[in-house]
């Protein structure tokens, strides 16, 4: 097994849901989706968001979109206008999710950045 950042396998979007947030994670291809289904468990997500998510993490599958949807409860520091946080609506939780490292089989090659552009060329995270 080796590890890769999630952003090599998937893209994401997040938003608020009551006093929590949701993060939709969309795999770039079927092989990546199969890996995420196995490795991107609610437990792993909860651990990744330690210090941000204080409630349960629930996961839903949308195989038609190669997507997993996560509900992160109690992740905003209060709902509505009650939060004091800069990110009171979980707008940045998608990008935070993509920073997670995922264990992948040794033979797995992520979808080519050249064709899928999984990393910003010349960006901070080292896209080619």
């Amino acid at each position: 097994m080796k590890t890769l950042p999630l952003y090599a396998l998937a893209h994401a979007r997040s938003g608020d849901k009551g006093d929590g947030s949701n993060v939709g994670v969309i795999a770039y291809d079927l092989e990546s989706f199969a890996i995420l289904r196995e490795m991107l468990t609610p437990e792993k997500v909860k651990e990744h968001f330690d210090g941000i998510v204080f409630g349960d993490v629930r996961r839903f599958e949308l195989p038609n979109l190669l997507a997993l949807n996560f509900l992160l409860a109690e992740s905003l520091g209060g709902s509505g206008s009650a939060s004091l946080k800069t990110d009171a609506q979980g707008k940045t939780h998608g990008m935070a999710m993509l920073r997670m490292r995922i264990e992948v089989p040794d033979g797995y090659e992520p979808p080519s950045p050249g064709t899928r552009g999984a990393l910003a060329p010349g960006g901070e995270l080292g896209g080619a």
Partner: protein
Amino acid sequence: MNQPRRIRIANGQGFWGDSVDAPVRLIEEGPLDYLTLDYLAEVTMSILQKQKRRDPARGYATDFVQLIDRVLPALRAKGVKVVANAGGVNPSACRQALIEVAKEHRARGLKIGTVTGDDILGRMEQLIDSGVRFENMDDGRPISEVLDRIVSANVYIDSFAIAEALVQGADIVISGRTTDPGLVLSPLIAEYGWKQDAWSLLAAGTVGGHVVECGAQCTGGNFSRWWEVAGWDNLGYPVLEFEENGEFVVTKHEGTGGLVSVDTVSEQLLYEMGNPKAYLTPDCVVDFTSIRLAGDGKDRVRVSGIRGSEATGTFKVSIAYLEGYKATGQLTVSGPDAVAKAKVCADALWGRLRRAGFTYDKTITELVGLDSCHGPIPGPPPKVHEVVLRVGVKDGDRAKVDRFGKELAPLVTSGPPGITGFAGGRPKATEVLGYWPTLIPKDRIVTRVEVEEVP
């Protein structure tokens, strides 16, 4: 056979405060049948109720009236109809203001429809007496806990009332609280005559509405691979091309910037998503796992296969109540040792308040530039030459919150060196609104449709 009758619906406003030019460009830069505009967020309803209490002629989205003033000639020339939840908590006042604007444009015969019945603030006690429980649907708490502090109460009404206004010939329909996707679904109901039990068609219209409800978030805005998006200064807002069978294409006007792809649309489909198999609206229940996406040429994505099922017997109600007060403020801390100095500042601030006898229900200390968004998620240690110290408090006692606001500025001269950026005066206490999501049986709500012609 006739060509399938295609209806083009665009959304030019994802929230109150979105681009003021987007709706104008949607009307002017390409073909369009309907323009939808979403102005209402939960917090907006409470602000509007407060405005209406001060002045009975207010309580609606004033930006909308200014927009119509700007685009009315183009709307009339191109025959574009408008559906907007700009009525807020006072749709009739919004209509009156629109009629005045229309008169100035000599738009005789323009028909303006209003849909009311969503605002139940004045009916709460009566509804409770008649047996509606308004239990908090998240945690089951009884409404009595907040009843004396409620500032707004609005029902997310169904899309058939707006459709009725369109069927009656309205060129512009103003509603109060509707669901965001309902703004798109209602013209489809009016145009195609979709029935109340045509669950999968209603679901298709709802999904279309969901894709465009945040404006440019499906046309390149907020897209993970942002570097692939070109033309940010000219970003196109979304246009849906609907067909009677419920299939549709997501696109944008030719020549505009942005990007519409299976990936940008997928991301927006998941935005604010709960259980994808049961997306509840007043009109139907949508199964988002049934959606099929396919590229359909440059900046075009075809959406099909959508399945819906029977709507529930209840409407969702959004109630806002006064929960307390809050204030936040910030200082900019320059290097060297920006982070260490910011932490000294924060400790000093909280320590000074404690010594003066002030503690709070909730406080926050963030170092913007270091970890304010992603918190402790591990990554390479950032090189930080300056940070913004952001602090805040929340409490039921307004005076205590205001006292916090007085403790920030002194740090510029009584803290470590190189602290600046204190501008804009002392942070002041603002109201914190809590939300009380709940349900009401549908038969308790009567919507009313009125269509008035500009004289």
